[in-house]
């Protein structure tokens, strides 16, 4: 059970990182110029009111005590109240998260589903035209400002060609499916609501492509270089010499080993996806946590911004943990 031990160690390692993340976020939220108490109280509040709010928020206590209070709140899922909406940040995040989850899921599906085959083709047809096309496509991807790509997609497919919807999650005439997971496509499937399913799916095409493109570019690149490296290995030569068909060499012998670095990059680049979601959701008025945080910025709503930061970072850290676990299964050489 060495894998179990390895996973255990990785889990333990996450604790200090998570604590560090909360400390950093706490410190950032304490560098806010101006006083959060007077910010919440509003411009017309009396001195006494501001003092009371300061006391209620615990801002008059020493900083490490404030951090302990903050941490205790976090552990209970309490991110404070949003200045903009006046309700708990946790409630807001819970409301908007399913949309973001659905969007990132479809983006990943697209990026991994297209990126790995593109990378393989690129490696097999190295330095021939399929390779050149695939490389150009991925060079464009890693340099593309997500928000600009989104605008161009809107311009072409929504405004000019009028073939795809450009904002929201559903046609306005439809009402959302019965809430089960909060992800419209899944909820519609579970309740057999086809019109909603199709509408939700078409509303995902442009945002998912926009968000997934950068990710696709990264995955294509890594798959290509990793395949090239593996295809030069001696055991591949041996397999060829033994007369094993090329297709089986590529798909069975080479791909499995080439995928190891691809899995790592899928984990690391997931951070790009979370960042990109902020921009994509803003462009496509897609009501997820990314759009929520941008709206919060306009109101300098720090509890909301910091709550978002902590939650998204935790997800990113767990994603990387998951990747490490998959890695351990894929590569038997990796052992602690």
């Amino acid at each position, binding site marked *: 059970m060495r894998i179990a031990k390895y996973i255990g160690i990785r889990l333990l390692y996450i604790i*200090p*990182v*998570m604590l*560090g*993340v909360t*400390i*950093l*976020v706490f410190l*950032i*939220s304490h*560098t*806010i*110029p101006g006083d959060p108490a007077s910010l919440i109280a509003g411009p017309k509040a009396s001195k006494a009111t501001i003092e009371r709010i300061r006391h209620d928020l615990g801002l008059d206590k020493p900083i490490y005590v404030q951090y302990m209070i903050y941490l205790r709140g976090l552990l209970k899922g309490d991110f404070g109240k949003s200045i903009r909406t006046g309700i708990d940040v946790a409630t807001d995040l819970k409301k908007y998260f399913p949309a973001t989850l659905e969007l990132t899921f479809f983006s990943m599906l697209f990026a991994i589903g297209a990126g790995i085959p593109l990378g393989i083709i690129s490696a097999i047809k190295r330095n021939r035209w399929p390779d050149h096309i695939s490389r150009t496509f991925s*060079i*464009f991807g*890693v*340099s*593309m*400002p*997500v*928000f*600009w790509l989104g*605008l*161009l997609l*809107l*311009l072409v497919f*929504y*405004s000019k060609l009028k073939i795809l919807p450009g904002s929201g999650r559903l046609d306005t005439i439809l009402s959302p499916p019965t809430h089960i997971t909060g992800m419209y496509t899944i909820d519609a499937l579970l309740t057999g609501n086809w019109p909603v399913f199709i509408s939700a799916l078409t509303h995902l095409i442009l945002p998912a492509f926009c968000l997934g493109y950068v990710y696709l570019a990264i995955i294509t690149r890594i798959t290509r*270089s990793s395949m*090239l490296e593996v295809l030069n290995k001696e055991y591949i030569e041996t397999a060829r010499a033994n007369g094993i068909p090329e297709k089986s060499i590529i798909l069975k012998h080479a791909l499995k080993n080439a995928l190891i670095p691809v899995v790592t990059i899928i984990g690391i680049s*997931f*951070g*790009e*996806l*979370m*960042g*990109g979601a*902020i*921009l994509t959701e*803003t*462009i496509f008025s897609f009501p997820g946590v990314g759009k929520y*945080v*941008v709206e919060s*910025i*306009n109101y*300098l709503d*720090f509890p909301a*911004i*910091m709550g*978002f*930061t902590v939650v*998204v*970072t935790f997800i*990113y*850290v767990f994603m990387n943990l998951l990747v490490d676990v998959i890695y351990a299964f894929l590569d038997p050489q990796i052992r602690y």
Partner: protein
Amino acid sequence: MKKKMPLTLYLILKSPLTLFGAVLVILLILMAIFAPLIAPYNPNRISLREKLAPPSLKHPFGTDEVGRDLLSRVIYGSRISLQVGIVVVLLAGIPGILIGAFSGYYGGQFDNIIMRLMDIVMAFPPLVLALSIAAALGPSLVNSMMAVAFIMIPKFSRLVRGETLSLKEKPFVLATRAQGGKPLYIIFRHIIPNSLSSVIVLASLVMGDAILVAASLSFIGLGAQPPTPEWGALVSVGRKYILDQWWYATFPGLFIFLAVMGFNLFGDGLRDILDPKIRGR
């Protein structure tokens, strides 16, 4: 290093993508330096009669909501983006290199603590951390550069730490140490200068990244504020007009894309050239 230059230059010229990247970077630099000479109009000249005019011979990129010439604004915007790239590389590179070199050289618990701190910074999705720092500091170009620089520090420190670990076992370093060379002397005289070729590659890639992240921050309202002709801010305002006045957001965005691609291609190409193991792949 000196002897290597002609070969490096030769290899750059032989690699079309690297050359293309270098050309884009050089054009960007020229555009920034000679902005007043190239720009057909004053970028802040308002002409309400010509507001939101489509691209024409008079205004090749069209005009904005108060009739300013977008081509001139985009040209002047190159100064801001280049400045962002350079400032971020310096603000992240100098502390990053020092942290990496000292951490790698001294090793032990000190190194352990420093690297765990870097892990914490890297645990955040980059744009998300930059966003919360920039929001806390307040929306401005300077604050957004500081936020972007902060998230880039670990890239430099991890790279230089790795170089230091291998350099400090090299005979010439061991010899200096045996002759009584002090750690500070070894770090500044041997370790850092010998890591510079990898640092330059990283710096080019970070330039591109920094321009992209800073533009993204401006786009969501946390970087340069309108009417500064910063590219991200231009796209942000132009977004309101995208369906009817497509040119407003399209051209500034195109320049972000080209600038970032230039630094990426150049950095990637340089890395391949400086690392002979993967050369020609």
